């Protein structure tokens, strides 16, 4: 299916008008100037489909599920028709040696030009033996594929930051893509799973401008990750008014009040859920009544419990009781010492007699 994207889309019954609207929406979502929508449309319409190799490592396939959920009927899915997805274990028809051959061919034919998408973390424990594909370890496959890639896109929190496999105590020695690949541009698209339009938005940016979008300090596209969930949350006014749901089924919860006290991590989580929403703009976790888990932040799994408010202790106090007893003990001991000192002083006290004064 080589050829300009616009032809591919036309074959699928997508009109030019719909396509332009999609590009304009995408451009505005990424905070690009209005003219960028047209530029994007032109560039993408004429684009030759770049080769994409998608490597799955220690993952749950949730990221792939997420991106396929955007497939129909929304346009996000169609944008994927514009890339040549040459290797994706979950989606491809080929298996076994044929699949591996497809990967090798894509790497050879598009050396230095293909995009490498990775989902899942990379285990380094026991020489990477915890996760192997076709008898080769993930770390080995990643190094080989990254060497010829134009850029690497780490999809999901596992590939971006290690994710759940890296959760304490990290039995497999899981690391992120950026821990291994040091010499290629890397875009992190964290989330568990990430928002489909963020994935397609980054691809569209790459196709349009030939470069990766502007990234924040954690390698995430600023267009989608520069604001916190809390700042964009439609329940924010309730936080400001001090109206909180105390349990998941109380009056506050029914009134749609703030979920901060139920452990919402919105204040420390950077993502676009509150604005882009999920499932074609249907809803998102907070709208459905559950606090944000903070899934697009590094090590969210070990951030003190999903149902504990940010202002309460992450762990039960362990040494406090012991310290209180020790403090009381020290106080009693010191008071005995003080009493002994007073007693000794009293005993040592010699009254002054007349004879002393006459000396």
């Amino acid at each position, binding site marked *: 299916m080589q050829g300009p994207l616009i032809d591919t889309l036309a074959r699928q019954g997508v009109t030019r008008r719909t396509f332009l609207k999609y590009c304009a929406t995408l451009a505005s979502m990424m905070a690009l100037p209005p003219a960028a929508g047209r530029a994007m449309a032109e560039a993408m319409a004429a684009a030759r489909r770049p080769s994409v190799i998608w490597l799955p490592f220690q993952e749950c396939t949730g990221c792939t599920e997420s991106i396929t959920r955007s497939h129909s009927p929304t346009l996000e899915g169609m944008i994927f028709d514009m890339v040549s997805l040459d290797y994706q274990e979950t989606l491809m028809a080929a298996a076994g040696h044929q699949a591996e051959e497809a990967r090798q061919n894509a790497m050879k034919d598009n050396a230095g030009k293909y995009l490498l998408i990775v989902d899942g973390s990379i285990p380094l424990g026991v020489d990477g033996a915890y996760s192997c594909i076709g008898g080769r370890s993930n770390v080995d496959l990643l190094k080989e594929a990254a060497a010829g890639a134009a850029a690497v896109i780490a999809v999901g929190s596992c590939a971006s930051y290690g994710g759940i496999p890296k959760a304490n105590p990290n039995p497999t020695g899981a690391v992120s893509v950026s821990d291994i690949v040091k010499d290629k541009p890397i875009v992190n698209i964290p989330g568990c799973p990430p928002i489909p339009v963020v994935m397609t938005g980054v691809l569209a940016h790459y196709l349009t401008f030939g470069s990766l979008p502007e990234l924040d300090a*954690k390698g995430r596209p600023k267009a989608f990750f520069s604001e*916190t969930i*809390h*700042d964009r949350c439609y329940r924010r006014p309730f*936080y*400001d*008014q*001090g109206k*909180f749901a105390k349990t998941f089924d109380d009056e506050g919860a029914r009134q749609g009040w703030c979920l*901060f*006290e139920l452990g919402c991590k919105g*204040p*420390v989580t950077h993502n676009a859920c509150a604005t882009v929403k999920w499932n074609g703009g249907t809803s998102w976790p907070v709208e459905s009544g559950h606090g944000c888990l*903070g899934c697009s*932040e*590094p*090590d*969210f799994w*070990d*951030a*003190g419990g999903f149902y*504990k*408010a*940010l*202002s*309460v*202790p*992450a*762990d039960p*106090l*362990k*040494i*406090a009781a*012991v*310290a*209180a007893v*020790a*403090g*009381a003990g*020290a*106080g*009693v001991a*010191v*008071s005995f010492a*003080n*009493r002994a000192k007073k007693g000794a002083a009293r005993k040592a006290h010699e009254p002054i007699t007349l004879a002393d004064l006459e000396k």
Partner: protein
Amino acid sequence: MNELQFLTWVRGPGLDIAVGIFLLGVLWRLIEIYTLGRRKDLAAPRHAAGASGLHTVFRRSLSPPGMLKRAPVSYIGGYIFHIGLAIVVFLFAPHILLVTNLTGLSWPGLPSQFVDLVAVVTMATMVVMLVDRINKPAKRFLSTFEDWFAWAVTFLPVLTGWMAVQHLVLPYTTMLALHILSAEILLVVLPFTKLFHAFTLFGSRWYNGRANAQRGVPV
């Protein structure tokens, strides 16, 4: 360590250590102070109107005659920032949640915008009082390192907390972690500095009032 791990540390092990040292210090010092004791005063007590421990506890909250005019900043500013601190610390919803989580006690909070305003007033008052301490030769002469240090560890939690809420300078996560850390530093130093007056204030007033009442002197 990224900022979320920093936040998780200050909410976890950091808080544990800080509360531990706080409890240890408070119990140690309170027990030590109250077991010091005093030999029984064998003189017959004199009685005078308004002379008792309780009277002194209240009377010392008011300025002595003429002093309000001589040191208005100390008295008015002192009132404003102490009340402000009490409102910010005990009536801000996330703070109440912390106490509820630790002790099970709970009470209603105030709207965050009002607490925000109180925080600004408190900080402004504290800055004015610091400037007054620097400007007045007598106050400056009497100030030791501990006075400046106590001011700083009291001011920083208010400043970082307000900055976290207002999203100033640093990302919220980092600022919140710094806020909690600064509050933990306050907890750690409180039992061992003059800030311990939070616990001994009324006890020492009562003691002085009682001792003087024995002699028939209302202080």
